[in-house]
C-alpha cells in the first residue's frame, strides 16, 4: 500500500473540486471573498487540528463547540468591559485551557470514557452559557476589530497566524518526542506505559492543548465581527471530527497527520460554497456533511479490513 495514499486521494479530490469551481464558478476565486472565507475558516481549522491530535491519542472530544461559545463570550465580555485586546485574548485562551483541563482530568485521571465525559461537558457548558447569558449578544468596542488593523491586513494576519500554528503543530507532531508520544499512546497505551511513557499525562496534555486551541480559535473568531453571538460554535465538534476523519486520522487512534487534516478541512470547507454555486439549497448542507463523514468512515473501515487480510 502506498504511504499517505489517503492524504493523496483527499488532496486529489480537493484539486478536482477546485478545478471544477475554477471552470464553473470563477467567482469563487475573487480575492476579497476568498480571503474573507479563509479568515473565517481559520479558527475552525485550529480546532480541527486540536481534535485530530485528540483522536490520534485514541480519545475524542465533542465538547469543543460548547467550549468555543464559552471562550467567545468570556473574551467578548472582557473586551466590552474595557480590557485591552491582549487580555481578552488571554481570557479566551485561559477559559479554553480550563475547559480542556476538566475533560483531561476526567478522562486521564478518572479513566472515564472520553465520549461520555465530553458529551456531559458539552451539554453542561452549553446550558450553563444559556443560563448565564440568556442568549444576549455582546457588543465589542470598535478598536479591537481585526486587531486594530485594516480589514484586509487583519484577515491576512489571521490566516498567516493560523497557518503558522498548524505548521508548528504538524512539525511538532512528527519530529518532537512529545508529538510521537501521541501516536504511541494512541496505538497502545499499555505498551506506551511499559516503554516508560506516561499515557495519563499525554492524554491530559492533549485535552488541555485542544482547550487552548479552542480558546485561541474563539479569540481569532471574536476579532472578526463587531458582536459575539453566544450560540457561536454550535456543531463545530462534528465539523472538526469530519475534517480529521476525512483527512485520514484513524478513528481507532495512532494514525494520521495534520497535513491530511488540513487538506480534509479545505475539502469540506469548499463543498459548502461549491454546492451553493451548483444551485443546491443550504438545507442539504448537513446531509452532505453526514454523507461525507460516513463515506470517510467507510473508507477507513474498508482499508482496515484489507489491511487485516
Amino acid at each position, binding site marked *: 500500500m502506498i504511504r499517505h495514499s489517503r492524504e493523496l486521494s483527499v488532496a486529489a479530490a480537493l484539486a478536482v473540486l477546485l478545478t471544477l469551481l475554477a471552470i464553473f464558478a470563477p467567482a469563487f476565486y475573487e480575492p476579497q471573498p476568498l480571503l474573507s472565507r479563509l479568515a473565517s475558516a481559520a479558527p475552525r481549522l485550529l480546532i480541527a487540528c486540536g481534535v485530530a491530535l485528540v483522536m490520534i491519542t485514541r480519545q475524542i472530544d465533542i465538547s469543543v463547540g460548547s467550549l468555543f461559545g464559552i471562550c467567545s463570550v468570556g473574551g467578548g465580555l472582557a473586551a466590552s468591559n474595557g480590557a485591552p485586546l491582549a487580555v481578552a485574548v488571554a481570557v479566551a485562551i485561559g477559559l479554553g485551557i480550563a475547559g480542556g483541563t476538566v475533560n483531561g482530568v476526567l478522562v486521564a485521571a478518572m479513566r*472515564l470514557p472520553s465520549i461520555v465525559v465530553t458529551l456531559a461537558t458539552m451539554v453542561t457548558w452549553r*446550558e450553563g452559557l444559556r443560563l448565564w447569558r440568556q442568549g444576549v449578544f455582546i457588543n465589542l468596542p470598535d478598536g479591537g476589530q481585526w486587531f486594530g488593523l485594516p480589514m484586509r491586513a487583519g484577515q491576512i494576519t489571521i490566516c498567516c497566524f493560523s497557518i503558522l500554528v498548524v505548521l508548528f503543530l504538524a512539525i511538532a507532531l512528527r519530529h518532537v518526542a512529545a508529538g510521537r508520544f501521541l501516536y504511541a499512546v494512541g496505538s497502545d497505551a499499555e505498551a506506551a506505559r511499559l516503554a516508560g511513557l506516561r499515557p495519563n499525562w499525554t492524554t491530559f496534555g492533549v485535552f488541555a492543548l485542544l482547550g487552548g486551541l479552542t480558546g485561541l480559535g474563539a479569540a481569532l473568531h471574536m476579532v472578526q465581527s463587531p458582536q459575539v453571538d453566544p450560540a457561536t460554535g454550535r456543531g463545530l465538534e*462534528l465539523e472538526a471530527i469530519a475534517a480529521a476523519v476525512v483527512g485520514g486520522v484513524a*478513528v481507532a487512534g495512532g494514525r494520521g497527520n495534520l497535513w491530511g487534516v488540513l487538506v480534509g478541512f479545505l475539502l469540506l470547507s469548499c463543498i459548502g460554497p461549491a454546492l451553493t454555486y451548483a444551485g443546491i439549497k443550504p438545507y442539504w448542507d448537513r446531509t452532505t456533511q453526514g454523507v461525507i463523514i460516513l463515506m470517510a468512515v467507510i473508507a477507513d*473501515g474498508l482499508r*482496515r479490513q484489507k489491511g487485516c487480510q
Partner: protein
Amino acid sequence: MTHAAANPRSRGSPAFHAITAHEALLLVIVLTEIVLFTLSGRRFATGDNVANMVRHSVEIGLLALVMMPIILTGGIDLSVGSLLGLCAVTFGKLWRDGGLNWPLAAAATVVIGAIAGGLNATLITRLRLPPLIVTLATYSLFRGLAESLTRGVDAFTNLPADFLFLGTGRIAGLPAQAWVLIVIAAGVWLLVHQTSFGRSFRAIGFAPEGARYAGIPVNRRVALTYVLSGTVAALAAITYTARFGTAKADAGTGYELAAITAVVLGGTSIFGGTGTVPGTLLGVAAIGILSNGLSRVPATMSSASELTGILTGVLLLLALSGGALSRGIVRLRRPTTSGKSQPHPVSS
C-alpha cells in the same frame, strides 16, 4: 474466574432479583426528589402532573431501554435523537404527502427506523468500525436528512384526532403512550434478564473475543441491539409527534444524551457487561422528575430547561465518577498478584 459467575443477575433463574445497592441508592434519590419537589413545587404531586411527567418521560424512557442492551455489549448509539427527528418527519411526510392513513404511515416509519438501525449495525459489525464514530456520522446524517426533507422549515400539523389521542388521551387510567413504554420495557426486560440473549450481551460487553470463542454469534447479537434501537427510536418518534401534535425536523434534539444519562445513572457500566432494566427505568424516572420538578418550583421555573441540561450533565459525570471510584476501590482491595488484569475491554 468469570465475571458472569460473579454477577448474580446473569444466572437469570429468579424472576425478580433483589434490588442492588446501586438501585437502592437511586431509589433514595428519586424519593428525595419527590419529597423536595412536593414541598417546594406548585401543584407537583397532583394526578394531572404525574400523568404529565409520565408523558414527558416516555420517549427518553423508550430510547434508554434500547440503549441499555447496546451499552451492555460495550457499544453506544449517539444517533437515536437524530433518528427520532428523521422518523417524525418521515411519518409526517408519509401521512400528509404520501396520502397514507396514520396507522400505515406509523408502520412504515417503524420499518424505516429498523432500516436506519440496520445501517448502524452493518457498519459496526461488517466493517468493524467503532460504534462511537459510526453513530456520530449517522447522528449528523439522520438530522441532516430530516432537515432536507422539510427544507428546514416545514412542519406537519393538523394530525387526525385519533392519532393525537395516543399523545394526549388515557387508556385504562394511564396516559396512552405509557402503554407503549410498558410493553417495550417488558420486552427488553424479558430479552435482557430472561433469555440467553441477555447473557450473550453481557458476555460480549465483558470480553468480545471471549464471547466469540464461547460460540456466541457476536456480530448477530450486536447487530440486533442496534436494529432494536432504530426500531424503538421510530416508535418514540410516533409518540413524540402525537404528544406535540406536530412533526418537525428538530424533534428529539439532545435525547441521546438524556437516554445515555438515564442508562448510566441506572447503574449500567459504560464499559459494558453489567446493567439492569429496573435500574434504567429508575434512571429515567430520576431525570423525568428532575426536569418536571424544576419547572414547578417558582425559583427555577424560568430557567428549568437550562438547569435540567446542566444537572443532567453533572449527574452523568457524578454517576460515572462514582462507578470509577468504586472500581478503583475494588482494585485496591483485591490482591494484585494476578498482575494488571484488565477488568473491562475499554471501548474506544
